[in-house]
């Protein structure tokens, strides 16, 4: 059972690979069929029981005594994680269907911006095709000849690399780099001195920025370093020490206070979900 959910190398065991896919689909449709056949009033109970059992594994794994950092349930960690991955993989299909439905409809209706939708569909199909070919036939030759007086050899994996490394990765980096400009405009608004609070924020930010750069430390380098008890007091007023004090004694406790609240909120919500105590929104819906 433990090995059943382990990833299978397609090249080494193609039969087992396809067998697991077919079996996985059969189990999925079987479970859906059973859920459909069960009377409505019992469906919530079935879901509650499975949710409880799923959470119970992690609770038991945490509370069972461990020796050298491991207990008897740790060896099943990967198996349970793989089950979640498999269940999650089915949902990707739902996302893809939703995405394509929207954009195909836009192209068919030639709605405003339909060109973007067409580009998305072509990109989606291109990445899907070359992603699969890269996995199962990476070295198959697509083109071999001369282009612009250069010898070129195009394989499935080189096209995939071009699309992924040359395209997606670069586009992602470009968007990421834009954050620098957004930070500048957001900082300008946040640090405008309009009230006592924004003045305090501006002052604290200025001290921390100066304390982090060489220029800032030069401003107070005439103060002693505090190596001896006599000069210890005056060393507190060096700008890098004030910046550290602000970060460690003011900022960190505030962050930890917020974290306490967030963690308690997460624990409460996790308990409500695990014990099926959650109400309101989609949880009260008839399933």
């Amino acid at each position: 059972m433990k090995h059943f959910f382990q990833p299978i190398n397609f090249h080494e065991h193609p039969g087992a690979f396809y067998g697991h896919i077919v079996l996985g689909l059969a189990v999925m449709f079987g479970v859906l069929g059973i859920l459909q056949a069960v009377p409505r009033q019992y469906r919530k109970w079935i879901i509650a029981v499975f949710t409880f059992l799923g959470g119970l594994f992690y609770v038991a794994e945490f509370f069972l005594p461990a020796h050298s950092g491991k207990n008897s349930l740790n060896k099943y960690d990967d198996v349970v994680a793989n089950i979640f991955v498999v269940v999650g993989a089915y949902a990707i299909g739902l996302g893809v269907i939703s995405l394509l439905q929207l954009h195909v409809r836009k192209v068919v209706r030639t709605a405003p911006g339909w060109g973007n939708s067409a580009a998305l569909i072509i990109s989606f199909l291109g990445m899907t095709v070359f992603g699969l070919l890269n996995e199962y036939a990476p070295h198959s030759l697509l083109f071999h000849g001369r282009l612009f007086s250069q010898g070129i050899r195009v394989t499935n994996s080189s096209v995939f690399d071009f699309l992924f490394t040359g395209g997606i990765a670069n586009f992602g980096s470009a968007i990421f780099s834009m954050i620098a400009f957004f930070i500048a405009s957001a900082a300008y608004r946040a640090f405008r001195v309009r009230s006592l609070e924004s003045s305090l924020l501006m002052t604290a930010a200025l001290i921390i920025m100066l304390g982090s750069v060489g220029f800032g430390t030069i401003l107070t380098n005439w103060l002693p370093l505090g190596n001896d008890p006599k000069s210890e007091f005056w060393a507190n007023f060096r700008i890098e020490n004030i910046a550290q004090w602000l970060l460690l004694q003011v900022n960190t406790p505030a962050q930890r206070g917020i974290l306490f609240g967030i963690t308690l909120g997460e624990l409460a919500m996790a308990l409500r979900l695990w014990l099926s105590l959650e109400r309101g929104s989609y949880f009260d819906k008839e399933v």
Partner: protein
Amino acid sequence: MLHASDNYWVSGLVVLISLIIVLNVVIAQQGRVPNIRRIPGLNAIDEAIGRATEMGRPALMIPGITGLGVGTLAGLSILGNIAQSIARFGNKVILLSCDPIVTGVAEETIRDAYTNAGRQDLYHDEDVRYLTSEQFAFAAGAAGIMNREKPAASFLFGDFFAESLIFAETGQQIGAIQIAGTPQTEQIPFFLAACDYVIIGEEYYAASAYITRNPTYLGSIVGQDFAKLILISIVLLGVIGASIVQFGHYHAGFGHISVELQKLLDLLKA
């Protein structure tokens, strides 16, 4: 800390807090419903909904960029309640999702919100859009939609990371009222700088309780407050204990107490 046996003190505390929360939820479900204070950021939600309706422009929602976890579910719960108010005014919601599973749950949530408001005719499948699971591709797509469709209100509730400022600043540029909340503490400063209202810390998990006045949520909030009292007491005891230990280092008369307290503090830290 991977196992309870690594620190039985902390594990015992987790069990105690869990029992307090569950007990308060059960008490509230049985009819003893507590009252909770108003959260200023949530007052602004009605203002944002009203403004979007008056301007005849849609409201945009993003439930974070992670999969279906506790933070996302809390965000979806808030967004579902906001969507119901928007639906009552006959306005449109656009929800952008970065995860296929979240998309499915979000579709159900928004559809239910319109149905509960009696305006299911206004709900369209394309209002809940899955863009991509790539972080910055999603950010680019969301920014593009914000620029093209010009929502008058933007609600950002969920787990956000480096892309948070792209959403918030784009919303700011198009003049949308923005209300945000996230359990990711690193992103709170970005939202504070760029959004009109921000729900901070545990308010994020209390928001649904406040909006819906649901006994389960309210009971949970009371349980969390009791747990917070316990944690604050422990922190105070730790501060007093650590101060006495420091004091003992300089004053010989406190040496014995100092050593014993140091042992206790080390035990708790271990």
